[in-house]
């Protein structure tokens, strides 16, 4: 589908955390290609490495706890890993922006929304004060907060949670980023608000032809907005495909079971599928498949050899030795 160069190419990224000599494998070699004007959903359970991925892209992994063991993250060919902090800053907040789950935590409580937008555009775009003022107006209009100057002059605590999320989106897109990372942007919101924010993000993406990495634990939310989706489990991408295809024809047993374990009215009266056992401990580094201990299809080879993420049909990759059989589970 995409013949163009990826906007961001992550290749074989391995990240580990060390604390008091204990090691935890956060990312066990992930590869994702993210394109302009495309929403790429990243879905996984807690601790699977979703947020570590986004932090790695914008160079905000906690140091010295996190260590990048191998891999690369390229932005239009430019390697971002190990870029000096001052050069990286041109990307972070400028070309690459981020929206977080809890806007209350990431907005500065001591400054008004207007001041926080002005700070961004003067820093990254070198605008004069009056231009910055006008830009702040424009941005709040874009995110649906522009009726009057109230929000511009408001401190974060004066806004509702939906408004805070909109304000954070305004700040994120203030410098016309090419790429937006949205990390669980609607998780703390009620469903009616969630829908509004999803619509806003999708509208902005279309308008500005941005690429977007949309991270969520909730497959049904990803389904609403993503064009492509990657499923991450225990620090590995286990499946990556077009959004619709994932529901039609999941090729990894984990994805398959995940889809069958989501309750809704159509499953009433039937038992939900469950995945036995616990998520792989981050301390463990098995030679085989990370899902093997919980997989109903696991055979001897699964414990011995780690399956590679390979395309089984055009644009549909699965990291399973028995990908062709998984859908029949």
């Amino acid at each position, binding site marked *: 589908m995409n013949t163009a160069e990826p906007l961001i190419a992550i290749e074989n990224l391995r990240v580990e955390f060390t604390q008091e000599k204990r090691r935890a494998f956060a990312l066990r070699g992930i590869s994702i290609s993210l394109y302009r004007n495309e929403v790429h959903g990243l879905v996984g359970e807690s601790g699977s490495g979703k947020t570590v991925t986004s932090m790695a892209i914008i160079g905000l992994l906690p140091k010295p706890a996190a260590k990048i063991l191998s891999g690369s993250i390229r932005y239009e060919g430019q390697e971002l890993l190990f870029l000096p902090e001052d050069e990286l800053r041109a990307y972070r907040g400028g070309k690459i922006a981020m929206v977080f789950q809890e806007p209350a935590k990431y907005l500065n409580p001591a400054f008004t929304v207007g001041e926080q937008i002005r700070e961004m555009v003067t820093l990254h775009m070198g605008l004069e004060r009056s231009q910055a003022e006008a830009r702040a107006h424009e941005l709040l209009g874009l995110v649906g907060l522009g009726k009057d100057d109230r929000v511009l002059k408001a401190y974060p605590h004066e806004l509702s949670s939906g408004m805070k999320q909109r304000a954070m989106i305004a700040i994120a897109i203030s410098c016309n980023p090419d790429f937006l990372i949205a990390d669980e942007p609607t998780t703390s919101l009620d469903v009616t608000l969630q829908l509004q924010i999803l*619509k806003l993000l999708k509208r902005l993406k279309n308008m500005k032809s941005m690429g977007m990495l949309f991270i969520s634990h909730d497959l049904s*939310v990803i389904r609403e907005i993503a064009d492509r989706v990657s499923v991450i489990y225990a620090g590995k991408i286990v499946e990556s495909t077009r959004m619709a295809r994932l529901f039609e024809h999941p090729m990894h047993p984990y994805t398959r079971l*995940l889809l069958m374990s989501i*309750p809704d*009215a159509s499953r009433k009266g039937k038992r939900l599928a469950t995945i036995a056992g616990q998520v792989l401990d981050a301390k463990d580094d098995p030679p085989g498949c990370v899902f093997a201990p919980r997989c109903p299809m696991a055979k001897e080879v699964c414990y011995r050899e780690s399956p590679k993420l390979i395309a089984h049909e055009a644009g549909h990759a699965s990291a399973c030795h028995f990908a062709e059989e998984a859908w029949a589970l």
Partner: protein
Amino acid sequence: MGPLIQCHGIVKIHRSGGLDGANRGFKAVDDVSFSIEKKGNFGIVGESGCGKTTLARAMLYLDPPTSGGVVFDGVDLGSLKPRQLRAFRRRMQIVFQDPHSSLDPRMTIYDSLSEGLINIGMDRADRTKKIGRLLDLVGISGALSSRFPHEFSTGQRQRIVIARALTMDPEFLVLDEPVSNLDVSIQAQVINLLLDIKEELGLTYLFISHDINLVAYMCDIVAVMYKGKIVEQAPTEELFANPRNEYTRTLLASVPGRSGQIDVSSAATLSSADREKTAPAVQGLSKGHVVSDITSRTGDKPDLTEGTR
């Protein structure tokens, strides 16, 4: 089978006496009435702050209602003396959302589950037997009962909380967002468990959640709460096929993953023209379908209309 529990016009007002002497009140639950059949599975959905949890706590007299009453198996809970009420509580238990805060971190699992049993004077041998049986029921090895809560995963902890709620052999369980903290794959395990023990022990459930898909899966009858009121109540299939209240419609339309991808062009709420068209029609309501009209609400008391068909 008759109703196990009936709520009549429950009102809960949170008082906040300011320093200025003003006596402000916030009506968290506003004139809510419903009843739950024996062995029924009654769901309440609503967004945060709509009064779901307050209603549950008022029903169990953990925070007695400001007005209105609850009749449990023919007994008016409001008429009981504190001592009688405490004895009555054995028959109704509640499971909260966050298992981390509902288990005492300094007590072993065995001790946590023993507390209620000691209160009713059960001896140690019987207690051990019963706790082993309950842990087995929820899929936790009895050998782990001497461990502390922090040694378990969140999903296991929620199972332990469920086992503890069962120690008193209750007939009625209130499940207040019992799986909202859990990952999808673990959530499915706990939901299956809840449905299994309901069947096995003949329990009656009040299931509270913000997750409409989950309530649709779990419950026979669903009530939609909005701003302290039940705005619509119907058997699950009927509610989803035929929502009458404007808020219910907006809520259902907002549920992710129900109708494919979002359409950027349409507005989140119904336009006023749609509102005309879809204004709750009383005609053709089937039995058990109760709807209040919040679109034309001017005062604070919605008119409830129940179908008779």
